[in-house]
Every structure is written in structure tokens, then in C-alpha cells.
């Protein structure tokens, strides 16, 4: 089985909230990355490769190799030689739609670093529309489908709040 560059699934267009025991984690797809929120702390996660139960990740720029196995609600996870058994107590998908009406929202608070498109531009699925900086990490906001830019609500240097609409594509 080969390795592949793994991007957030296109059908994972919602925030995903999972509870393991006393801890709840929320994953928000954002371009090629995810923003993971745990107890008010946000980290940026990129999946470098994933196959056969092994994932190589960049977590806030730090390389992490994790082995995960699934056994009903149980997850066996090994990171840095430490094996934990986590039990999913709720896996319901909650939260706002990420591409509501074609709109792309800020996955976390941050500052807009650059905007690459203007209203009326034709864009391709996966094309980077703007870059924002959060927690000293660059997050690329990408088009989730082919279309035309309907609105651009932010400008370079602007600070944005979580879930604020940035760009709309239709």
C-alpha cells in the first residue's frame, strides 16, 4: 500500500467533535491542514502521510508519528512509545458547516497574511484563496470546489475571529 499526501476529505465539510472520556477534541479542516481544539487550546495539524494504521503528522510544526487502531469505540494510540487506550464517548459531528453556502470561514482566530483572489475570479478546487496566520502557523484557505469568487470579506493585515466568513465561492 503506497503512501499518499493526505488532505482533508472533501466530504468532511463540517467541524468534527469527538469526546474521549473527559477530553473533547474538535477538528476543523482548513485547507490542507486541520485546526485541533482541545480545552481552548488550538494547534495546527497537517497529515504528511497515513497508511496501515500509521500517521505522520506535523503538529504546530513538530513531527509526530502516531499508530492508531480502532476497535469499536476504543482507539489504541501509540505516540513516542507510549500506548494509550481511548474510548469514544461521543462521536457526533457537531458545529457549523465549513463551506456554508460556499463561504470559507476562519478555523481559528488569527491575522490575514495575504489575499490571492478578487471578486469575480474563477477558481479551481484546491486553489489557495488566502493565507492567514494563527499561532505562528500559516493556514492556507483553499477553494473546496470549482467556481467564481462571490465575495472577499477580509484584507491583508486584518485580524479575524473564529468562524468569521472570509471568502465566498459559488
Amino acid at each position, binding site marked *: 500500500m503506497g503512501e499518499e499526501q493526505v488532505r482533508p476529505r472533501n466530504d468532511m465539510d463540517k467541524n468534527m467533535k469527538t469526546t474521549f472520556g473527559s*477530553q473533547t*477534541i474538535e477538528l476543523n479542516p482548513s485547507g490542507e491542514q486541520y485546526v*485541533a481544539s482541545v480545552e481552548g487550546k488550538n494547534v495546527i495539524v497537517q*497529515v504528511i502521510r497515513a497508511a496501515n*494504521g500509521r500517521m505522520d503528522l506535523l503538529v504546530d510544526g513538530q513531527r509526530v508519528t502516531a499508530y*492508531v*487502531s480502532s*476497535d469499536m469505540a476504543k482507539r489504541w*494510540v501509540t505516540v513516542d512509545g507510549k500506548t494509550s487506550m*481511548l474510548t469514544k464517548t461521543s462521536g457526533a459531528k457537531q458545529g457549523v458547516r465549513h463551506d456554508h453556502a460556499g463561504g470559507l470561514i476562519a478555523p481559528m482566530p488569527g491575522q490575514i497574511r495575504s489575499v490571492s483572489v478578487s471578486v469575480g475570479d474563477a477558481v479551481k478546487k484546491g486553489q489557495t484563496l488566502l493565507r492567514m496566520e494563527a499561532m505562528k502557523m500559516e493556514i492556507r484557505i483553499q477553494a473546496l470546489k470549482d467556481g467564481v469568487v462571490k465575495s472577499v470579506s477580509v484584507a491583508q493585515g486584518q485580524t479575524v475571529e473564529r468562524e468569521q466568513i472570509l471568502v465566498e465561492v459559488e
Partner: protein
Amino acid sequence: MFKKILIANRGEIAIRIMRACRELGIQTVAVYSAADAHAQHVQFADEAILLGDAAPKESYLNVDKLIRAALDSKADAIHPGYGFLSENASFAAAVDSAHLTFIGPSADSIRAMGDKAESKILMKKAGVPTVPGFEGLETFDEFKNAASEIGYPVLVKAAAGGGGKGMRVVNSEAELKEAIETARREALNSFGDEHLLIEKYLAEAHHIEIQVFGDKHGNLVHLFERECSVQRRHQKIIEESPSPLLTPELREQMGQAAIAAARAVNYHNAGTVEFIFDPKTSQYYFLEMNTRLQVEHPVTEAVTGLDLVHWQIRIAAGEKFPFAQSDIHQHGHAIECRVYAEDPFTGFLPSTGKLLQFIEPHGPGIRVDSGFATGDDVTHFYDPLLAKLIVRAENRTVAIQRMQTALQDFIVHGVVTNIDFMRAVLETDDFKQGIISTRWVEKTLESNSGLLDSQQQVPALHSLIAAALADVVFFSGRAQPAVSNETDPFNPWKQTGNYRN
């Protein structure tokens, strides 16, 4: 040389023996129980014969079935491995009667060392130090005099005993009377025999054993020691060679004592003479002789460079052991960790299930002897040993570091293992100083010294992220993953890496 060997065992040791057979150009026959139909040792062998049901007495302990399997498959020898029938003199005799070769010592040697009282008397005669003590005492005054001659603390224990029953530690004369009465009662209830023996009690004892090797031509050498003091439930979990406690003089003395012990029972093939070692006095005492290959034999292979299983086979076939004592040396340092499917939090009770991931470490100086692979079932029928991880390095410090790293790279999902526990043990100052005695694990866990604490923390952030992310990249798009331990552990394992772009 043999053309075909039947291996009367399972798991990692069966595979290790088959590997040696292959290297020597010998065909292999595996035997298996119904529970092991798809086990790795069956897969590895040239041919395999079903013995019967999962229960050991229907399969791996069934002498008649094993002999018949060997005759049917036209094997010319049987290797018993360790455990099961490996120290059963009747089995060795039955193999001989069937005109097959038993790869191990003679039935007489096994029998002589199998009886603990008889072997102690034999050892005394052979000049091998035994734990100071007395047998055949009756009256309280006899016990009292014996105890003061030995010196407190002493141990009174059932002559017919074992497993800690009918055994009492006595710290002073004031405790002696009651201890004798209690031990007698327990001995009578457990073994139907109230006879007690009394011996020196060694509170901080180490377990140090000497590997011996002899051929059928009278050559007998020792292959140095293994320190096996890290134990839980009276079973070893970490072994090493050399022992950090022995001086070259002591090593040579104990080696010669082991040879004397083996010679006293006309020993040939691989054997191990176990000693209790008192670090305060540097005295060593004969404990027992294991008349078979040991679980921890790779430690000796790593430091001597000899392949013990090769030589077991070649000696059984009548070859001469070509090395004199002066030809054999210890190089560097080796450590073995036994990876068990067991839960340190439940008093090391076995853990069963399907292995969802089983990834062995590798790298310079790392050896893994294992009997399992991803997808295999770990059942409750047999010993929960998953694998032995052996490292070799130029010295003890580097060996410990290498072992830590290798344990960190050993991934087992699906059953709870003692991997994290062994990492915690290796991390302690006591281990680093080499002062762990046989009761250390028990005492350390009792005194709540935090040996298990590091394993009880809530999962770290990275683990949490990985667990949640796995649902997206591996397991999403399905209500439940197809791999499961909880629904039907006997279904063939199926991979579900179904992520896609």
C-alpha cells in the same frame, strides 16, 4: 545429522527452533492445537500436524499424540522447547523407546534434577553450595536449634511444597513456634504432607544462573551467567549478561560449581544451573537445575556468539562440542525483555484479544524472537509471552539505552502489554545500578513508588489528536470499523485502511 525434526511446542520458541533447523538444512514438523490452527509456528513449518483440542493435555502435553505425530511424519528427532514436556522425564524416555532422538539431556538427568530434595542431596555430595538448612526435623527444639545455627531470618517451608504455600519467613525465635504451626497446617492442606524444612532466608537475593553445555563425549563447559532478578509473580521479565554483581573470580567459581552440578547428573545438551546470590556476602547457593533450553537463552547467544539451538541439535545428533572453556568469552552486554500480554494494573493478569497492530522494532544490535503477527489472536489457553526483545551493545549503559529505544518502537495494539512497565523499570536508579533483587517489583509496587504512575496520566495532546484524526483518515465513511475485538474475536482479521483523497 537429522533429516526432520518435530518441534513439540508453539509460539516464539517453536519458530526459533525451526529457524535453526532451516539453517542446518533440516525439515521441520510443527504440531498444533485447534486454537493454534493459524498460528505463526504452523505457518513457518514445512509441515504441520493437528494434535487435538486447545487444552494442553489434549495437545502440547499429550505424549502419545506427539510420539505418533513424529512417527507418522517420519521425523527422526523431537525438540521439546521450554515449558510443556521439556522437563518431563517420562516423555524423554518415551521418545527414546520410539527410537527417536530427544533433543535434550537423558531421561535420567531430567529425573535426578526434577526432584528438589534429591537434587539438593546430590548437589551437597558434589560440593555445590546449597542454601544452608536442615531437613527431617520433628520437634520444636530441633527447629529452634537449627534456626539459631543457620541464623535469623530463616524460612520454614513444606518439604513437598511449591508456589509459596506452606512457607513462612521467621525473623526471630519469638515468631518460630507459630510459623511452624501455620506452615504445617498449610502444608498438610495443600500437599497432604506436613513435613517442613528450614533454611536461611535471603531477603535481598538475586537470581543468577549459569548456562552449561555438554556433549555425549564427556565435554562440559559453562557459557557464563545470566542475571534474572527482575521478576513479577516469581517469573522473570528482564534478564541480562553479564550480571552487574559478579567479579571475574565469582563468575569463574559459579561457572565451575555449575559444571560440577551438571557432571553429577551426567548431563549433556543445554542446561541451566540456577543460583540464589546474596549481594551482601557474595555467597551463592544452588537453587535448581533446568534441564532444557531457557526462555532467556538469546542473552547468552548475544554475548558468546554461539547459537545454542544449533549446538543442541548437533550434540543430540552425536557431534562433539568443539570449544574448550578457554575458547568461550563474553563480549559486550546483552539484555532481554519479555513482552507479555498482561496488565501491570491488574497484578499482571494476562490480556487476550486480537492483535490489531504488532510492529517489532529493529536496528543495530536488536533481535526479536516472536510468535505473533498483526491479526493473530492471543488466547487464554497458553502463556501470554508475545515476544522476546533482545539487545546487545558494547556495555551495560548503552544496552539499557538501546533497550529503551527498542521498547519505544515496539507497537502492540489489541492486548495490554507490559512494555511501558518495563520501560519504567529500566528507567529506575535501582536498575541502572544493577541492585534489583527478586522481590523488588513486588515491594516497589506495594510501596506505591510511582512505578505505574506515568502510565495512568490522561492521554497526551498528540495521542488525542491522532485518535480523532484517525477517524477521518482511516475509519470514516463506515458506521463501525470491520476490525474488532469486541464482537467476534475469532473472525479472520481484515484490514481497513480505507482513507482516500
